[in-house]
């Protein structure tokens, strides 16, 4: 009774509170967005206008983007960054999924000790590691040119075999689902329409899964390419010597062992009920099959988190790439933008266009995955 009365009496006040809330939030949002808005609007101005106090371009200059793109050589930097991200991800995901599974579900002597040691490395600030790592990478780069190239070629072949072994299983699942949906539909046109509809619903409901499909496709193409070239090169002894500095190994291999990824996945894997494993055991499945066919399909969410975080990580990386690259051949986008900003200097309409070009891919990824993304940030934060 009292509650209802209260509600009636307070009705106008609550509304006022709501208006106040919206105003405060809008002010906050304004401050959060101002740099973006100013960047976009300046990037569309002519130089003279950009140097003035104008807020909105009087005439829209799309060509700024083309000029910034050409002068900043963004094509090269984009391709580099995408390569670096994909290579890092391939290694990071494979290694940390395997390790996290072992830490979560297998028993072996020293399990907790090793995991504890791994966790304690998260305390070490990057500045302690960056100097010795630079020395290690230059050392390896100077020494292992020839033998290291053979070793890496060998690893690539194994990795390609694993990818080509794993992917068909998922493809089969997908194909079965597809034929189940298309059963009883006559005519290829109707089938196509139905299939497209199915694709659309899946995409809308599970954008992370779709990104995963794209990623898998990229890995499959890469694996076929590796299998077509590497074994012959190894047999014929024609593997190109491979320096580490100014090349992809220095930019990717140190980041393939990620404590954070192992930790996140282990947390998730250990929540999977034991009954599932026992059932799989009775059906004759070993650890690897259980991992591939039961655990992985259940773990799309944490895997997506790792994908997005390491995408952002390698897109933003600055200190390490500055150290290990001194030619543009393998420089990632952040270093490229820094160079462009320094070089284009006062032509701020161009530098703003360059900055926006760099941000776009991150924005796309963020908007596509923002729900899982914020959720997982929150979860990892609360646990850590």
């Amino acid at each position: 009774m009292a509650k209802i009365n209260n509600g009636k009496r307070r009705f106008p006040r609550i509304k006022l509170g709501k208006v106040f809330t919206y105003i405060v939030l809008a002010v906050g949002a304004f401050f959060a967005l101002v740099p973006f808005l100013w960047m976009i609007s300046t990037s569309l101005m002519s130089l003279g206008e950009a140097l003035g106090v104008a807020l909105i371009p009087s005439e829209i200059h799309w060509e700024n983007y083309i000029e910034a793109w050409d002068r900043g050589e963004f094509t090269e930097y984009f391709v580099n960054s995408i390569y670096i991200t994909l290579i890092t991800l391939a290694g990071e995901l494979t290694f940390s999924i395997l390790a996290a599974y072992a830490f979560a579900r297998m028993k072996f002597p020293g399990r907790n000790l090793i995991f504890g040691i791994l966790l304690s490395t998260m305390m070490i600030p990057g500045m302690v590691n960056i100097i010795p790592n630079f020395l290690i990478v230059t050392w390896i780069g100077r020494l292992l040119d020839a033998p290291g190239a053979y070793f890496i070629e060998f690893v690539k072949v194994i990795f390609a075999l694993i990818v080509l072994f794993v992917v068909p299983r998922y493809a089969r699942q997908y194909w079965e689902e597809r034929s189940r949906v298309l059963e009883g539909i006559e005519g290829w046109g109707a089938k196509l329409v139905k299939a497209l509809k199915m694709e659309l619903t899946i995409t809308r409901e599970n954008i992370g899964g779709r990104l995963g499909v794209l990623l898998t496709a990229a890995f499959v193409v890469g694996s076929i390419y590796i299998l077509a070239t590497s074994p012959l090169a190894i047999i014929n002894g024609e593997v190109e010597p491979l320096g580490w500095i100014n090349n992809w190994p220095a930019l990717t291999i140190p980041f393939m062992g990620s404590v954070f990824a192992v930790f996140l996945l282990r947390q998730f894997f250990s929540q999977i009920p034991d009954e599932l494993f026992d059932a799989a055991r009775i059906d004759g499945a070993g650890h690897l099959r259980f991992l591939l066919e039961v655990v992985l399909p259940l773990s799309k969410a944490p895997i997506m988190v790792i994908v997005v975080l390491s995408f952002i990580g390698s897109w933003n990386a600055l200190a390490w790439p500055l150290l290990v690259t001194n030619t543009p051949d393998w420089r990632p986008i952040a270093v490229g933008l820094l160079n462009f900003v320094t070089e284009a200097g006062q032509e701020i309409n161009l530098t703003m266009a360059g900055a926006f070009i760099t941000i776009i891919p991150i924005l796309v990824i963020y908007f596509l995955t923002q729900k899982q993304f914020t959720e997982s940030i929150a979860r990892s934060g609360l646990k850590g």
Partner: protein
Amino acid sequence: MEISGTAGQKVRQILRGRRGKNLREYLAAYLFIFPAVFLIFMFGIFPVGFALFVSMHKWRLKRGDFIGIENFISAVDDLAYVTMFALGIGAIVAAYMLIRAVRARAAEYDEKPWLMAIPGSFYAAALLAFIYWVFVQLPEVLDIANKIVGLEKTREMFLNLLGEAFRAESVQPAWGVLVWTLGVSVVVSVAGWRLWRNRRNLSYQTQFGLAGFSLAVGIFLLVWAFREVLEAYALAAAEGVEPPIWPHVIAIASGVLLAMAGWKLWRSAEGQFTNLGFWGRILGALILMTGAVLLVIYIPAAGAMGDKDIWLGLRVTVFYSLGTVPFQLAISLFLAILLFRKMRGSEAFRIIFFLPYVTPAVAGAAVFRQLFSNRPQAPANAVLKLIGIDTQQWLREPDGIFSMLAESIGFTLPDWAGGPSQALVVVMLYSIWTFVGYDIVIYLAGLGNIPTDLVESAEIDGAGKWHVFRHITFPLLSPTTYFLSLIAIIGTFKAFGHIFVLSLGEALGTTDTFSVVIFREFFEKTRYGYASAMAFVLFAIILSLTYVNNKIQGSRVFYG
């Protein structure tokens, strides 16, 4: 062929059957974790030891002479000795704790494991021999890179050089010691196992081994530090001056001891609401404060003769922490509470607030460089002009903002009260802009964990919004606040990317936080040894911050 065939059969036999099943699982697990663990060891754990090695050398691009702790002394002066003594004593205390744990367990199971100290001490010796070997071997292996400059690199040559490095003259004694201690410790350990069949035998052995190791390390550190101090006194005496190293060591040690004792007293008296408890608390607080005052006076005094860059970097970092963390947390808590009410559009607001966090640091910093440019038409200056303030230099202004504010109303402040430079204030703004979104997300998750019935029942009891916040929401959020403040404070010491991009030459280094100072020392001045020593100073600061934070805040956080 024959032999390998039988050996293969034997291996297969071992791996077969029920007992083999465990072994198979172990093998598979080790295979699973190998790649990740190897990489993390290679680029995450080994580098720490390597950095210690580098920091004890004169190392500019190439390795120079071994100079012991000289780099640390030129970085933080007498604090280096103090830290060495502290680490030595810490290692001895750790050894004592391990022995105490062994004693407690022995009492629990009523057994006498003391003979296992013999294999334990051999373990410790083997571990020490291993470290010695690494220390001697590393230079030889590193030198291979210099030997092959300009030669064609082949597998054979590399393997030959590697073999040579392992057989080098200087490494021979280390190999001898390592092999002997290892062999003897394996033999003694097996003998110990045979003589006393006990499930806990091996873990007793390991504990004794660890205790022996940390005891040896502690004694080694203490002796080393003692000799270094004596040497420094001898050197100074030759010049006819008396360095105040011992007074510094003693003052800081007594400061730490007093602070710890006061803390203990305070904590133990806290639960008692008697007169004695009350006076105990007062006394504890007094002792704690005396210790803290000693520390506050003597730590800067002991480090005063160290590197000026480090102190500047630390000052900047402290300003940066104080200027970002509280504001960031307050703003995000406020916004999170507003957002937490389910209403139309809160999702969209959350997405907007989070945007700056995912923006690449270089791009965001490039925008801020233009927003706060020194051109009169730049947005920040244009806004100031509207309210009648002159054009500011922003990111190019090395003067402190407090002294600038004071000057504008006709005062002159002394140098030490100048506050953070105007350039640093812009960096702080950038930092707040970036991290508010992250903090909001974490706060929202924390708010989601607060049981709604608590808030509802309080509202039924007539509590106003402020009271609900003050007495329910805020206390229940304290773990989240604690987590965020820890992350944020440590983050300010690690902060690099955006500060590196935002710092311009005209700001005269007033924006360079500690990490940036280290990076410049390494990247621009190529003083690898010295930069490594500085990085360890940073590591020590982060560790002690975490420790102190855990002690203080950990006890005040309410985990409901």
